[in-house]
């Protein structure tokens, strides 16, 4: 469904992506792992067109993502941002129903609110939070609202950017379980970027490791622990010594 070939992106002299090749099948949950600053977020943002790539090709269902009607293209996507990226000035339900209150997916306000409440319920939040502002919620609740917003318009593709960063282990487990349940139930294709190995094992069908601007290793999640790749082994076990240089 998503096919990436020779994707490159530099910021000044810093070459972040140096020819990424990656395939994600329809309905598959791919998790991209890799150290901080290896370009995982840039990869996701390049697919969405938030960061224009310098070279390479990205196709979704066989169609090139460059030069198409961007709004129509993005209407198939949902994204959960690392920090939630909830709109401070809007109450929770309007954040969730943002897409349903404007543009081509616009619905009557009452219907949009009902759908937002339904999505909030799906992520374990009651109607009492609907009229609160995002700043009045805890970090875990903000993540849930972000997740509800990402799935509000029933997207075919969902991206999760560090979904458990900043959460305690219990809340991280809850978010991982929610992501797995919801994406399975919706049949959505997902790409998650994380360096939390608990997330990887809970969410992934397939794992890809990004290192030095390229996909270093890719395979089913079940093969992760048995691979001989020294980079993957160092990463998943968190060893300070190995081929991946750690600044100390």
């Amino acid at each position, binding site marked *: 469904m998503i096919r990436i070939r020779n994707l490159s992106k530099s910021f000044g002299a810093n070459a972040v992506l140096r020819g990424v090749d990656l395939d994600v099948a329809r309905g598959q949950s791919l998790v991209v792992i890799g150290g901080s600053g290896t370009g995982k977020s840039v990869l996701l*943002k390049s697919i*969405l*067109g*938030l960061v224009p790539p310098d070279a390479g090709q990205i196709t979704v269902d066989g169609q090139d993502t460059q030069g198409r009607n961007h*709004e*129509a293209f*993005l*209407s198939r*996507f*949902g*994204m959960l*941002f*690392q*920090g939630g*990226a*909830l*709109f*401070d000035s809007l109450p929770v339900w309007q954040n969730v129903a*943002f*897409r349903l209150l*404007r*543009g*081509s*997916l616009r619905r009557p306000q009452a219907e949009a609110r009902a759908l937002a409440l339904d999505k909030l319920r799906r992520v374990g939040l009651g109607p009492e939070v609907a009229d609160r502002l995002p700043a009045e919620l805890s970090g875990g609740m903000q993540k849930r609202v972000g997740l509800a*917003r990402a799935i509000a318009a029933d997207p075919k593709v969902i991206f999760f950017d560090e979904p458990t960063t900043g959460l305690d282990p219990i809340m991280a487990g809850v978010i991982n379980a929610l992501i797995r349940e919801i994406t399975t139930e919706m049949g959505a294709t997902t790409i998650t970027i994380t360096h939390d190995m608990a997330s990887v094992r809970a969410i992934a069908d397939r794992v890809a490791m990004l290192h030095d601007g390229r996909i270093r290793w890719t395979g089913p999640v079940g093969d992760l622990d048995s691979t001989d790749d020294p980079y993957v082994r160092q990463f998943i076990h968190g060893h300070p010594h190995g081929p991946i240089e750690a600044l100390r």
Partner: protein
Amino acid sequence: MSPAAPLALIGRAVLAGLAAVGRVTLFALQALSHLLRPPFYGREFAGALLQIGWLSLPVVGMTAVFTGGALALQIYSGGARFSAEAVVPQIVAIGMVRELGPVLVGLMIAARVTSSIAAEIATMKVTEQIDALVTLSTHPMKYLVAPRLLAALLVVPALVAVGDVIGIAGGYAVATGPLGFNAAGYLKNTLDFLEPLDVLSSLAKGCAFGGIAALMGCYYGMGSGRGAQGVGRATKGSVEAAAILILAANFLLTGVFFSA
């Protein structure tokens, strides 16, 4: 150091300045083009009208009333040096309507509104809210910039008109109070002396200054760097740029309206 080094330095500064002018011009043209193309965000426009217009009234009113009063005192004491105290109503009217009203309202809007727009949009940028808008199929120029720009273009001339009236009222209060002017005579002199071109230039300046204030807030906000420092720099830069551009535009518009 090579003798050409200072020239190279000047050249680089000029090129950087021209590049900045080019970027701002492209941003302004893009923003203006979004005013004309749907979708239109009515709720965001209404919010911007409230923020830029209604909530700026107290600061505009206070600025205008004290400026009008001080202007009356200055003209009276200055005019006394050549027995021209009687021109207070005329000079207060022309000073407020042609110059001080639009310029002071413009600068107050730059301080209050430009800074607020820049800080809000810059914070949205560093917290990925602008990226989130894009992923929700919403163009940030349409959702964030166009409503604020349109609101400023429409409401700042109205604020200037209010400032002009309040400034003249400040001058009237001082002149008819401590300075002992006749109230009816003061009003008659004010109204007789003002011409339609004075009012037109005042409103046109308000429109231009409103556009500059909103555009600078949006431009610096959208171009903000990372973190709290990025937001701070964007806010400071937006107010500086807006204030300088407002004063430069005032000079140009005064030349256009009154050079003949």
